């Protein structure tokens, strides 16, 4: 990617961000819940109508929509995402405290997924239409059809409740705490990726250079591990970037199940208690992270694949 393309990507990202921020703000604006009332009730006060109205005026909730929107955006740009009413802390502080645990969980499930999916996918492709392939395909089929929150619950039931091997609530950051949530996330993803790896390897195996290498007498194992395998990982890089995005969202379900102190869990609680600044902050943060990761992934892809790097 040249400088020009990077600039246009950044511009695109900016437009998307503006759109996302507008959409989230509009949604919270239209939302039936009243943040001021929620603020008081969560503090244990039964507010009068006058109190609510005066607080709304004070906090600017009665201003016209665009005034509110631009004020919020302006503050966000200064790094002030507002204050969470339900937790009575700055949104920035809450989000940054939860960011690392979620990333840790995301990365760990990715690693687990790769450990499972890559060998299975390669195996299934190399032994295409042999028993191994059929077994792998059947397993991955069930893997993509099983809801991950159910997997999580079953894992808790078995390893936590029955065997008492692993903690039911993963509030800490230890490896043991991470294991079950990460496995839960990895199950569906591994199934999906096993299929992708299989398709990618099959596609590579049918390319001309494999015939060329055979004609030169190169060993099958050299062809597979020295050429086909590295090449089939290339398209995976882009997919991994996209997966990090859906994982950041997908973790919320798993985080809730395991009471894991991550971004998703925070967001679900924020939505339940109509804590709007927190929700808006969460959506913006996750979008920015997602877009930055994908930009980095695309850049690295350009670096890894010489065809992208060198072709004029």
């Amino acid at each position, binding site marked *: 990617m040249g400088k020009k393309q990077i600039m246009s990507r950044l511009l*695109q*990202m900016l*437009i*998307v961000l503006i*759109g*996302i921020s507008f*959409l*989230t703000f509009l*949604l*919270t604006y*239209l*939302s*039936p*819940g009243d943040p001021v009332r929620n603020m008081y009730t969560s503090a244990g006060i039964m507010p009068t109508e006058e109190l609510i109205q005066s607080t709304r005026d004070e906090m600017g909730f009665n201003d016209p929509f665009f005034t509110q929107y631009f004020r919020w955006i302006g503050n966000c740009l200064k790094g002030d995402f507002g204050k969470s009413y339900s937790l009575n802390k700055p949104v920035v502080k809450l989000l940054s405290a939860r960011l690392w645990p979620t990333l840790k969980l995301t990365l760990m499930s990715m690693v687990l997924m790769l450990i499972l999916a890559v060998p299975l996918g390669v195996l299934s492709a190399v032994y295409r239409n042999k028993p191994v392939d059929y077994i792998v395909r059947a397993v991955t*089929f*069930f893997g*993509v*059809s*099983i*809801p*991950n*929150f*159910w997997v999580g*619950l*079953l894992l*808790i*039931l078995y390893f936590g*409740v029955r065997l008492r091997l692993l903690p039911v609530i993963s509030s800490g950051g230890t490896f043991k705490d991470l294991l079950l949530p990460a496995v839960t996330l990895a199950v569906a993803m591994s199934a999906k990726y096993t299929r992708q790896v299989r398709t990618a390897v099959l596609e590579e195996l049918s390319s001309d250079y494999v015939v060329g290498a055979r004609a030169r007498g190169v060993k099958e194992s050299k062809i597979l591990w020295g050429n086909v395998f590295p090449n089939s990982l290339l398209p995976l890089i882009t997919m991994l970037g996209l997966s990090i*995005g*859906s994982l*950041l*969202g*997908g973790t*919320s*379900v798993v985080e*809730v*199940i395991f009471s894991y102190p991550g971004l998703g869990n925070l*967001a*679900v609680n924020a*939505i*339940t208690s109509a804590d*709007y600044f927190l*929700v808006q902050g*969460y*959506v913006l943060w*996750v*979008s920015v992270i*997602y*877009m930055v990761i*994908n930009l980095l992934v695309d850049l690295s892809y350009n670096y890894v694949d010489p065809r992208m790097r060198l072709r004029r």
Partner: protein
Amino acid sequence: MEKKKNKFLSNRGFMIFACLALLIVLASVCAPLLCHGVDPTEGELSEAIMAPSSEHPFGTDKMGRDILARVIYGSRTSLVSTFSLVLTIFVVGTFLGILAGYFGGAVDAIIMRIADMMIAFPGLVLAIAVAGMLGASTTNAIIAISVVSWPKYARLARSLVMKIRHTDFVAAAQVTGSRTPYMLWKYMLPNTITTLVITAATDIGSMMMELAALSFLGFGAQPPTPEWGSMLNEGRNFMQSAPWMMIYPGLAIFITVVIFNMLGDNLRDILDPKTE
């Protein structure tokens, strides 16, 4: 037409899973019959949290409601909401995609930039936010997932339309004075419909899971409506004492998703033999 019919009938996989899917639909339609009049929303508190027995084959929940009845009635919620969801994104996505592809220019730019925005964003995050802020209900959950899922269909429809947009027969039809709605209906739609139907059919399973996930988080169907996702959520608090509360609803989702995924895959194989 006759030939197409045979293609469906002669595909054993398709017929098996079509029958199974039909069975699920039938079960949900005939729920009152199957449950012998047991009300899924009424329970005897004295019968709360009872293990599976001959009287309650799947056990009872914390309100003493029969879980088997709730699972059967739950299929209504799941099927109706999943089909409405898939239909919504299918219709909206296809319509917008055809418009974008056919008209190009500003229409295309606006529609596709919005679609890009949705795609450049982790879907479930936005869906959770939308569902949460609109307020928890089945309809809002459907809207939330539709908002983030239609772009896939729009992109597909657009690319298919673009392929035939500048072919001779379209130009000929335009020259002979066919009106735009007629053009869209007569030429654009038929050229996109097969691929999009395949996509929709293969999406049913995952859409069902996403809806269940939202309900599980409390942003979908509200109690006492029987819904598999929310039943799982209730069940997880009683995991230690009453694991059946979470096992059966989960199994119901799993089996239904497997059947619809299989059906979708087989349908794709029949309609689009190119892909493996």
